[in-house]
């Protein structure tokens, strides 16, 4: 405790500014001074897990050892927010099933002529609740799932949450909105009130570690029909959110659909997507006329 207090007292305003600039340059995530308390606490946690007992030593080591990655990744893991649960904001999944997927099939020539699987990306996928929710909704409620292949990918910048997504075991809080029949059908109890997603679904969802602002890294994603990128762009400053938008655009098929969080608006970020009003809300499309 004494050490934690010493650590907290060691982070000056100038330290915070230097750190915020450093973190922004490497991740695109911008922390304003209003986030000072949150950042201080997370940095304290990182310092406690390091061999250093003050900010100056830890920060110097972070920069020197940047390429080895471990400290940097730990920092990202601490500073990214990963609160989520199954079927969160599921009106957007309703929109996906009722309007978006039928439109995707239509635009790709119909069931009989579709070339390749329908591709869905969840980014950031955090601990996996979102991509597995998509899988559950598609399996249970899309009437074309027996006729069409669906490929689901999840991606996140945080390696810790990806490890949890891979293991896919969840407690009450995450599962509160999962209908009981689905829980019995697609999850296995593993003790201590926790359930693990069925192996067949886990193995069907492909997970990746990527920073959405990193253009070269994002180039592995191409031709996605549907992208969920919810509640992350609000953490970026204008420049980074714009680059993230460009990278999402590059990941999508012309005509593909992008879902943002309910409080987010692409029109404040970039004009490259076309907003489309669905009964369940706004979705953004990569224009079909433009490459």
């Amino acid at each position, binding site marked *: 405790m004494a050490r934690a207090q010493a650590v907290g007292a060691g982070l000056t305003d100038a330290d915070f500014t230097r750190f915020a600039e450093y973190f922004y340059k490497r991740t695109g995530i911008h922390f304003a001074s209003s986030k000072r308390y949150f950042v201080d606490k997370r940095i304290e946690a990182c310092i406690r897990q390091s061999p250093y007992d003050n900010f100056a030593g830890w920060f110097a080591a972070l920069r020197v050892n940047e390429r080895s990655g471990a400290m940097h990744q730990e920092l990202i893991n601490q500073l990214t927010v990963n609160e989520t649960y199954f079927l969160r904001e599921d009106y957007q999944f309703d929109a996906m099933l009722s309007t978006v997927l039928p439109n995707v099939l239509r635009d790709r020539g119909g069931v009989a002529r579709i070339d390749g699987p329908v591709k869905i990306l969840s980014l950031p996928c955090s601990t996996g609740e979102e991509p597995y929710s998509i899988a559950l909704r598609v399996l249970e409620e899309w009437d074309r799932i*027996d*006729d069409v*292949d669906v490929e689901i990918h999840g991606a996140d910048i945080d390696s810790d949450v990806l490890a949890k997504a891979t293991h896919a075991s969840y407690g009450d809080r995450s599962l509160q909105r999962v209908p009981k029949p689905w829980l019995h059908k697609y999850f296995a109890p593993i003790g201590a009130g926790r359930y693990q997603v069925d192996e067949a*679904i886990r193995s069907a969802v492909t997970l990746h570690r990527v920073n959405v602002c990193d253009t*070269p890294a994002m180039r592995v994603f191409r031709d996605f029909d549907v992208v969920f990128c919810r509640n992350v762009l609000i953490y970026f400053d204008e*420049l980074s959110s*714009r680059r993230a938008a460009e*990278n999402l655009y590059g990941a999508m098929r012309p005509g593909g659909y992008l879902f943002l969080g309910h409080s987010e608006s692409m029109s404040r970020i970039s*004009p490259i997507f076309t907003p489309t009003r669905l009964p369940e809300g706004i979705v953004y499309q990569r224009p079909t006329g433009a*490459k």
Partner: protein
Amino acid sequence: MGLVRKKITGQPEQITWERLSADALRALLGDPDPDVRREAALGLEGVEEAVPDLLTRVILETEPNIRDSVLTTVSAYDTEAVAGALAVHLASDDAALRTAAAEALARMPRSMPALLPSLVAAPDHDVRVMTVMVLADLIHPDTGYWLTRVIRDDPHPNVVTAAIDALLPLATAEHAPLLEAAARRFPDDPFLRFTVQAALPGLTGTA
């Protein structure tokens, strides 16, 4: 049919982007394929020697989406030289270009303030309206000062009206006399008068 897994290990693209040099990317800015031009522009992030090529591409590019990609990369260079080169387009006859340039300049809070004295004094009132558009979105502590100055001093009602619109999210009761004075300066402009009349109750708490 059903859920299927595919592990992405590479990409089936014809161009292996990560192997391209900066010179190759610069050359691809003029490629006939818009998607290649877009990827080249984004791939030049952090390549400072490519800034002149990107600024040239802003002028030559015919696809608005590709131009936006170029501006995304180039506006990361928040320098007076880059801002100055973009500010020229505020006077463009191409509405999409001048709007895109204004949006890019609004992302350049370090360099924009140095340009403001000349931009708010530009002889072309359309340039001054575009400058107000930049100020509306620019995240900088002095935007309120600049908008106030435009409202107080600019001789064109369209510029003043645009500045009032831009100031409203920041405005308080203290700005009410400024808006009333602006309305008095242009008694024959119904739109400006309407803008002020619509704004005042919200500022003075009489709404």
